[in-house]
């Protein structure tokens, strides 16, 4: 995996601070620079800067694509860890005066998306198990990602005729798969669509090269084919 190294000037610009500040942070250990070949010049890995400035959308997306060691604060190795952290998010949201009513559906849809990752990939994780789960209360966003099988592969188990990721997301978000199948009936994404089209909550969801957007104010369910392919799933919830 190629490591992109930035100079201290580039890093300062990216973080919106002065070069002096970065020197101080390096000395204090707040943000440690890399000194190549024991030299004097300071360099920074772009990933480290992203994590430092907590651009969680970028980190989650990059992890879903390329895999690297996630900071433990964002990584849920199993659903019990996810449950515990989601309960914490629930309290934080409940503390926001403007979210006193909305918090419950925000937590519910986050739970559905996160638990889908565990339910559908248990025992079948292609490489790193678990999910990325991060949130920024100030920015009013929640990000989830997994490196699992993705919606198409999962749905093909019950719907072998699905042709591509776009069709798969269409079924996942719009069709009720009920019936007496022994397989767990996965209807969480229908719920997510219903909530995000009726509440002031926006959704971006990607699996494979298919992307779903539900945005204010139109609240249309928009399903498009994007440029890149993610094997697993990636979701951003804004409220």
């Amino acid at each position, binding site marked *: 995996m190629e490591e992109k190294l930035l100079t201290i000037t580039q890093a300062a610009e990216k973080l919106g601070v002065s070069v002096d500040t970065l020197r101080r942070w390096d000395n204090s250990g707040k943000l440690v620079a890399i000194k190549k070949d024991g030299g004097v010049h300071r360099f920074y890995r772009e990933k480290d800067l992203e994590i430092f400035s907590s651009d969680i959308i970028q980190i989650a997306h990059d992890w879903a694509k390329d895999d690297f060691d996630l900071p433990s604060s964002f990584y849920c190795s199993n659903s019990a860890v996810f449950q515990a952290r989601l309960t914490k998010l629930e309290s934080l949201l409940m503390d926001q005066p403007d979210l006193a009513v909305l918090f419950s559906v925000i937590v519910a849809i986050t739970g559905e998306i996160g638990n889908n990752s565990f339910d559908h990939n248990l025992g079948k994780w292609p490489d790193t198990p678990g999910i990325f789960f991060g949130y920024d209360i100030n920015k009013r966003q929640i990000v989830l990602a997994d490196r699992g099988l993705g919606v198409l592969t999962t749905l093909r188990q019950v719907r072998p005729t699905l042709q591509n990721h776009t069709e798969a997301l269409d079924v996942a978000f719009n069709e009720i798969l009920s019936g007496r199948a022994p397989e767990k*009936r996965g*209807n*969480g994404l229908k719920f997510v669509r219903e909530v995000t089209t009726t509440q002031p909550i926006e959704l971006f969801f990607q699996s494979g090269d298919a992307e779903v957007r539900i945005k204010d104010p139109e609240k249309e369910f928009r399903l498009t084919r994007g440029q890149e392919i993610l094997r697993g799933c990636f979701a951003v919830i804004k409220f």
Partner: protein
Amino acid sequence: MEIELKKFGTTLISRQAGTEAFRAFQPTLQEVEKDENLEIDFDGVLTFSPSWGDEFLSPLLEQFGDRLILKTSDNLSVQATLKTLTEVNKKPFKIED
């Protein structure tokens, strides 16, 4: 018989947790009389999601039909989840004050 759902937890979100709750509920369920109603109270529940709800409420709906009564709740996630479950089960819940 009245059931306070909050006794199973206040953040009711995963299939596994819902299944576990349903299993734990079985002994109590045996005590419901032949023509008795089963009332579910959502008071105190903070988040209620369809994965949990499907594992707990759907089998109850099947078993009790009209005798399963859900008390109204002003919790948004309860309302939204019941709506989804109604579509999934193709059968409405009986909701009363």
